């Protein structure tokens, strides 16, 4: 079915477009972009094709389908927290046409068999695309390389042991060399376990007052520096996940200035909340890396502004309500984020920190280019993956309306301004906010 998206402001940073254009979609592809479009066959009475579906997008932003490059879908193995079906539904509701799914499933995605399983499940579910990330090491144990070549054939688009850091620098070096060979970026969870162990929140005056063991910023910084050095040595593409410290932002900035192939992402909770949010012991604030200081939040915003941080990714980490219903130390770390990511990112637009175009770029052209996938653009001939945003749509984050199976979000009850109002994959509407 043909679709005409009419009257919207098309923002496609991949093509440098930011103006009012209509979008014509046919056979699941972008057919044309143009002002005041009319589809030729619109009024032909003998045309066997159904009339084009009209999407009125006045007041909305029409962007390439958003890509969340850091998501935990929990299937196989942890279906009680989330399944591929519920996770992709949450993604669609959040405005995402593709997500990069991490490998810390059970069994770990360290073989082509698991990669194939995930892709098959996603294909059966339909809707948002699943881009698998393969493990760096077998079982995420950090000892031996996983079957990277096999997984690459099966369709992974990157390597990560996320959940875990790769503690052994020698193994990280080999993973980077191997990844470089296959043109797979290494997505790194930077955390020195020996400095962070036992910690449940940022180490600082709040952890001291709350009597909780803290994780010093240094635990992240030393690994960011280490990985940048290894990236320089190996020529690999290093992508730093969930940057949470000011120093990490500085390290990435300097590395880019030196021409090292490093990219980085920030999660909405790290540019929205500080460690003060932990007061009261709400376990939905427990996350790894933890919420840090106001100065770190400011540095992350500055990093997003000047392009040091290329991507906004949610690190969507569902946990069952009973798991989070424990004392702070016992509760698992992680928060869902697919359905609040865009709303929180748009706060930066409303605060005047990022333009709409910058925000769109961090969800489209940049993550797509890091993962080497042909998404993130509305170039004619591309798959018609489209995200339609209303930057002024206000709503309250409510557990009952979230599509994710889990509800572990510290943003429950927040009023957000800005959301996806329609999501299309291959020209099919997979989500519409009525």
């Amino acid at each position, binding site marked *: 079915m043909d679709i005409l998206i009419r009257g919207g402001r098309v923002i496609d940073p991949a093509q440098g477009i930011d103006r009012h254009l209509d979008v014509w979609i046919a056979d699941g592809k972008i057919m044309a972009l143009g002002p005041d479009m009319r589809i030729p066959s619109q009024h032909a009475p003998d045309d066997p094709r159904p009339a084009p579906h009209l999407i009125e997008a006045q007041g909305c932003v029409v962007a390439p389908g958003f890509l969340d490059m850091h998501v935990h879908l929990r299937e196989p193995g942890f279906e009680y927290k989330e399944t591929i079906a519920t996770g992709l539904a949450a993604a669609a509701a959040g405005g995402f046409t593709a997500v990069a799914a991490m490998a810390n499933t059970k069994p770990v995605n360290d073989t082509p068999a698991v990669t194939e399983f995930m892709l098959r499940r996603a294909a059966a579910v339909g809707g948002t695309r699943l881009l698998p990330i393969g493990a760096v090491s077998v079982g995420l144990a950090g000892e031996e390389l996983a079957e990277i070549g096999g997984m690459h054939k099966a369709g992974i688009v990157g390597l990560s042991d996320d959940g875990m850091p790769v503690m052994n620098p020698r193994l990280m070096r080999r993973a980077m060399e191997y990844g470089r060979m296959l043109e797979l970026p290494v997505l790194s969870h930077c955390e020195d376990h020996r400095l962070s162990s036992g910690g449940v929140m940022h180490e600082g*005056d709040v952890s*001291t007052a709350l009597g909780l063991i803290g994780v010093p910023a240094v635990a992240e910084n030393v690994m960011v520096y280490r990985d940048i050095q290894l990236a320089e040595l190996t020529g690999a593409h290093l992508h730093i996940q969930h940057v949470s410290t000011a120093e990490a932002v500085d390290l990435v900035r300097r590395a880019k200035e030196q021409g090292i192939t490093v990219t980085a992402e920030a999660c909405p909770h790290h540019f929205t909340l500080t460690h003060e949010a932990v007061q009261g012991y709400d376990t939905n604030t427990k996350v790894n890396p933890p919420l840090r200081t106001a100065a770190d939040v400011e540095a992350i915003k500055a990093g997003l502004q000047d392009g040091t941080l290329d991507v906004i990714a949610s690190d969507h980490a569902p946990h069952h309500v*009973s798991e989070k219903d424990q*004392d702070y130390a*016992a509760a698992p770390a992680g928060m869902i984020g697919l359905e609040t990511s865009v709303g929180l990112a748009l706060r930066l637009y409303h605060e005047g920190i990022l333009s709409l175009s910058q925000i769109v770029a961090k969800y489209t052209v940049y993550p797509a280019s890091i993962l080497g996938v042909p998404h993130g653009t509305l170039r004619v001939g591309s798959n018609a993956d489209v995200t339609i945003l209303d930057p002024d749509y206000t709503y309250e984050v409510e557990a009952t309306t979230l599509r994710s199976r889990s509800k572990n979000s510290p943003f429950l009850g927040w009023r957000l301004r800005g959301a996806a109002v329609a999501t299309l994959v291959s020209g099919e509407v997979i989500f519409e906010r009525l």
Partner: protein
Amino acid sequence: MSTIDLRGRDLLGIESLTADEIHYILDAVPPFKEISERDIKKVPTLRGKTIINLFFEPSTRTRTSFEIAGKRLSADVINISVATSSVSKGESLRDTAENLQAMQADVLVVRHSAAGVPHLLARYLPSPVINAGDGAHEHPTQALLDLYTLQEKWGTLTGHTVLIVGDIAASRVARSNMLAMRKLGMQVCVCGPRTMLPIGIEQMGVECTSDFDTAIQGADAVMMLRIQRERHGEVLFPSLQEYSERYCLTSERLRRAKSGVLVMHPGPMNRGVEIAPEVADGLESVILTQVTNGVAVRMALLYLLLGGS
């Protein structure tokens, strides 16, 4: 002051008490101390009330103190010791709370090795929750009895300096005392090896040092904390011997202090490690008075939370 009413309130920490409320509680203590001095140590004030001591961490001292306090007020006191296992930790907490809710306890006294547990329970239970110690976070009744002990000796608290020595980072007694003393206008200095002084401690309005010999000179009272060499599998100082050399309150160290200095300890003591036996038993020691006052303070608290005004 006449507008203060603590009935039905939780006592989760000193954090949530104002200076006026702390004074209010301390002012209520003397008649309860008197009851404990009688031959028949009982009044019918809380007759028919059910107090549940829910202790997830072993404790004889605090639990006994709460039990005696409740019984002297004629309440029915039930002690529940719940063993924590890492597997069922979460289940125990939620299930136990809901069971107690169903049994209509009038007040729940909780001790747990994890910070924030009383807060979690208070969210589910309409009846008051008293924090008897949550991990390294707070032990509010300890701070109240410590303050009462000092006030009893000095008449006033404002302007006095207290030195707390030991594993400050891991101590809920230190935290609650720091908060309480600062609220009441006292000076606090915390002392211990650098490895045991938490980051950002100065933000709590206290001085911090690793030099015991210098710090003791300015103290009106010295509070010694029991020490553990290992915490969460990590060794924080080379040996108990080295620790004692630097941080044990010996008679020699005590001589450097002001005359009339008071020696405190929340107990249990490791004689010879953080406190010399002769100092623990000496004239400056108010350690046993702390214990006596503990019962009285807890009686006053139960009375104020459950029905006194």
